[in-house]
């Protein structure tokens, strides 16, 4: 490996000055600027993160720096240093003039020969990272940067992970939806091979301009990637056998079957790749494209450049908006303007003593102890206000209760009713005991990186995902809006209705489920899901029509000679299995799983009960902090009065 790099440490010295030149991009993590180092005139990229606007733990952001600074490879963007000014973190990195592969895709897709070069360079970078036990976890065209001479480098280690040994695995749900490997979505435990899947998706992205499934809503992609067949390139789309084979080696659903970076470097498609300078035409093409359609050039504000030059902003200053001032300031306001609050506090201490006397103060030690005891007993009543919770979702403060299916439902309910499209908070994402629901807001448009979630509530998220069946890509106008059907409580049905219900729940759903369980590509699978949702909604909303519909179909079959004749031949040959449904149902019972519509009745029944319960005045929740303090208080008392 290369010798010890002599890091240009002075580039990261907060005392030296930069001039910000232009904005290179804005991501969910901040803005990236092209900047010039005032002394050496070296051009660098500065990633600016507003620490105040993110609810992430600062130590997570630091992890990115730790990854970058432990990499020294020609295939990874170089890290020069970082510093904080005010609440902004500045990360100084190598500047790459060629732009990202996503930029370069704007004027058009890449040729196969160019894709091969980019893939080879990425594989060299990945081989290095993987040998160090690092997983990038966010490989996509947007995170692949080119220098102006065509060098290809991996960028953005914002969500990278370090494996502690070559056999350990990760479970965190992270990455960018369309590029995520099936095992990452399933939370089944994954390792460096997850990057290889994303590389395969990136190769398709470079060939077609968009990753596979991009026509679907990102919430659906979470379901489709693990369930559907792995995407492939088709020969009739004009791709070479080598390229299709390379994609096939990357996009294996079982990571065990997937090639490693080392293997792939020996692949024919990669070995045929030529020099990186062959990528320069892509850069020129993009420059010409940008010249034709000039965007708004973003230049830094004066204040920002003042910060860059190291003038001010090194500490928190400026006038914050203070809502009101506490009483300890009041007595001296006006006379000691601008003096640190500390001084004012002295003044208050005297007041305090006086107030204390007025209160009667403390008695003898004995009395005090009595008082303490009494206050504690009272306090235990008083300080534990019976706070009623608005949410039916209990959060036990000290012990985590085992999660029953019904609490799972309620959890889902509370989230769907109030916050389906919201984002999970940092705390929720770190919650290891309960698991987080992946919400629409977490996924964004599916093209930006998802913040890491320690444990995803897979079942809940899957249910939530079902609500997006038939919803198109976020980026395009919704293809089939209005598919949602709020299911209302139903009244008693006529015999025909009950038959319709049974028909849908036991026959149609069974057939659709067992059909969907087979191996399908995403398009087929999603079409089946649409049918399933349609029938499920119809069955519970208007089972009589459902009954009528199926009967009409049967009638239509009988009336159509071609179909009818075909069916008769088939069934005589024993091709149509009549037992399909029953085997499915018995399987279902065997698993104890409740997948089809009968469970939706249970769900609502359970929810109603749940709401009734929480509405009941007898069951009230304590504030977790009150509980916490109270229990600790009791502990403390036991220490003081062991006998009592």
């Amino acid at each position: 490996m290369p010798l010890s790099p002599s890091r240009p440490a002075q580039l990261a010295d907060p005392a030296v000055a930069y001039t910000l030149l232009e904005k290179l991009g804005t991501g969910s993590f901040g803005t990236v600027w092209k900047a010039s180092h005032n002394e050496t005139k070296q051009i660098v990229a500065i990633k600016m993160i507003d620490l105040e606007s993110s609810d992430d733990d600062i130590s997570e952001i630091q992890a990115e720096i730790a990854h970058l600074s432990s990499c020294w490879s020609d295939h990874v963007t170089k890290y020069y240093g970082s510093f904080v000014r005010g609440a902004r973190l500045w990360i100084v990195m190598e500047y790459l003039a060629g732009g990202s592969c996503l930029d370069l895709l704007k004027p058009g897709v890449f040729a196969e020969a160019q894709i091969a070069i980019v893939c080879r360079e990425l594989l060299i970078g990945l081989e290095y990272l993987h040998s160090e036990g690092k997983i990038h976890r966010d490989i996509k065209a947007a995170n692949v940067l080119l220098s102006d001479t065509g060098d290809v480098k991996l960028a953005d280690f914002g969500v990278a992970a370090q494996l502690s040994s070559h056999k350990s695995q990760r479970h965190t749900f992270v990455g960018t939806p369309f590029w995520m490997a099936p095992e990452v979505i399933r939370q089944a435990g994954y390792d460096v091979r997850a990057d290889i899947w994303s590389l395969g998706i990136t190769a398709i992205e470079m060939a077609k301009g968009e990753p596979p499934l991009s026509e679907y809503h990102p919430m659906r992609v979470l379901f489709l990637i693990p369930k559907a067949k792995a995407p492939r390139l088709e020969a009739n789309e004009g791709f070479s056998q080598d390229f299709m084979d390379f994609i096939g080696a990357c996009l294996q659903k079982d990571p065990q079957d997937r090639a490693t970076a080392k293997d792939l470097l020996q692949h024919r498609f990669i070995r045929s790749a030529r020099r990186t300078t062959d990528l320069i035409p892509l850069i020129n093409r993009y420059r010409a494209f940008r010249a034709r359609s000039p965007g708004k050039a973003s230049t830094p504000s004066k204040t920002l450049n003042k910060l860059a030059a190291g003038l001010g902003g090194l500490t928190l200053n400026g006038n914050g908006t203070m809502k009101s001032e506490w009483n300890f300031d009041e007595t001296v306001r006006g006379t000691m303007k601008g003096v640190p609050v500390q001084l004012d506090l002295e003044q208050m201490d005297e007041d305090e003593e006086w107030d204390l006397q007025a209160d009667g103060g403390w008695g003898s030690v004995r009395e005090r102890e009595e008082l303490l005891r009494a206050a504690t007993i009272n306090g235990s009543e008083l300080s534990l206000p019976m706070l009623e919770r608005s949410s039916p979702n209990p959060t036990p403060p000290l012990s985590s209760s085992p999660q029953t299916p019904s609490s799972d439902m309620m959890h889902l309910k509370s989230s769907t009713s109030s916050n389906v499209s919201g984002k999970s908070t940092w705390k929720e994402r770190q919650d290891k005991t309960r698991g987080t629901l992946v919400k629409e807001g977490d996924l964004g448009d599916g093209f930006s990186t998802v913040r890491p979630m320690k444990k995803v509530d897979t079942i809940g998220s899957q249910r939530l995902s079902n609500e997006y069946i038939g919803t198109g890509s976020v980026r395009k106008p919704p293809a089939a809006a209005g598919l949602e059907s709020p299911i209302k409580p139903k009244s008693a049905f006529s015999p025909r209705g009950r038959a319709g219900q049974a028909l849908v729940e036991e026959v149609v759903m069974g057939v659709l489920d067992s059909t969907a369980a087979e191996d399908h590509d995403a398009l087929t699978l999603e079409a089946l899901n649409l049918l399933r949702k349609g029938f499920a909604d119809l069955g519970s909303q208007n089972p009589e029509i459902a009954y009528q519909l199926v009967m009409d179909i049967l009638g239509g079959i009988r009336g159509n000679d071609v179909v009818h004749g075909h069916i008769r031949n088939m069934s005589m040959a024993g091709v149509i299995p009549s037992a399909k449904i029953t085997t499915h149902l018995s399987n279902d019972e065997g698993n104890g799983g409740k997948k089809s519509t009968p469970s939706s009745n249970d769900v609502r029944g359970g929810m109603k009960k749940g709401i009734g319960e929480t509405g009941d005045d007898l069951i009230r929740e304590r504030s977790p902090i009150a509980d916490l303090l109270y229990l600790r208080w009791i502990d403390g008392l036991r220490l003081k009065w062991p006998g009592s």
Partner: protein
Amino acid sequence: MNFFNRQKTRSPGDAVKSLRENIVRLDQSVAGEGRKRINEEISRLLASVKSSLSGEGDVEPSPDAVAQIANEVYAQDLLSLMIIHLGKFDFEARKDVCHIYNMLLRRQLGTRSPTVDTIATRPDIIFNTLKGYSNPDIALNTGMILKEMLRYEPLARIMLYSEQFYTFPNYIENTTFGISCDAFGCMKETLTRHKPMVAQYLDANYDRFFNMYTTLILSANYVTKRQSLKLLGEILLDRANYSIMTRYISSEANLKMMMNFLRDKSRNIQFEAFHVFKVFVANPNKPPQIASILRRNKEKLLVFLKEFHNDKDDEQFNDEKQFLIAQIQQI
């Protein structure tokens, strides 16, 4: 190079011996070609020691080789030498040292951790590792090793009870972001991992510790201030630290500090301060001086809290806020 270097390394133990010889030679050499070659040799030896310890691909490391290496590392004093000379090693070699260190620390013989036992008799190794924070070239490498050491109570105890523990603020305040955060992380590890041990220490050294800690909370550096406030909340709300919490929340100076932070211009600082402030209010048995400050500011606090971070979509926070409002109303 000379005849010696051409020799094939015969056993993993020999590699360790040879490593020591080369480190000593590196020390005596002057910059130039010679040193470069010694460095290459050190890098090669470290890589080979590392792969003997971790195994290669699907091949498990041989327990025999691991035992040989470990014993030789202890005997040749390499645990100390590798740390002291880390700054002179090549970039990749430094990372290999981290790996070797971590694997040795995790090594167990029955219930014993021989590497931990060895380092426990050599506090200077821990302190030299801490000192790595003053060298930006290796700070994150030594930081990683230090963090691994602190997982073990005997080593964390040595750190916590030492004078050197009080140099953490210096490393946190006077380094760039990445190193500062790493140093903070190690301080946090020392203060949170081995709870009963820490509680005992804080009880006995309450004043000294909180004098130091308050300087971090009052730091002019946004990151230091925010992180140390957050950690303060965690320390106080930890069950093991009950008596430390009661002491902390009976000090009016502490309450005033938190109330001022509630009005900090940074929303994150306000939020972290809230999580300390709530403990003062939730205390069912407030000392008179605390109750008095709250009483004097009752109306203002009520108005303030009703408008405090209303946009937060955080159930627990909102509950706690309502609880505080109810508590203050009763005062």
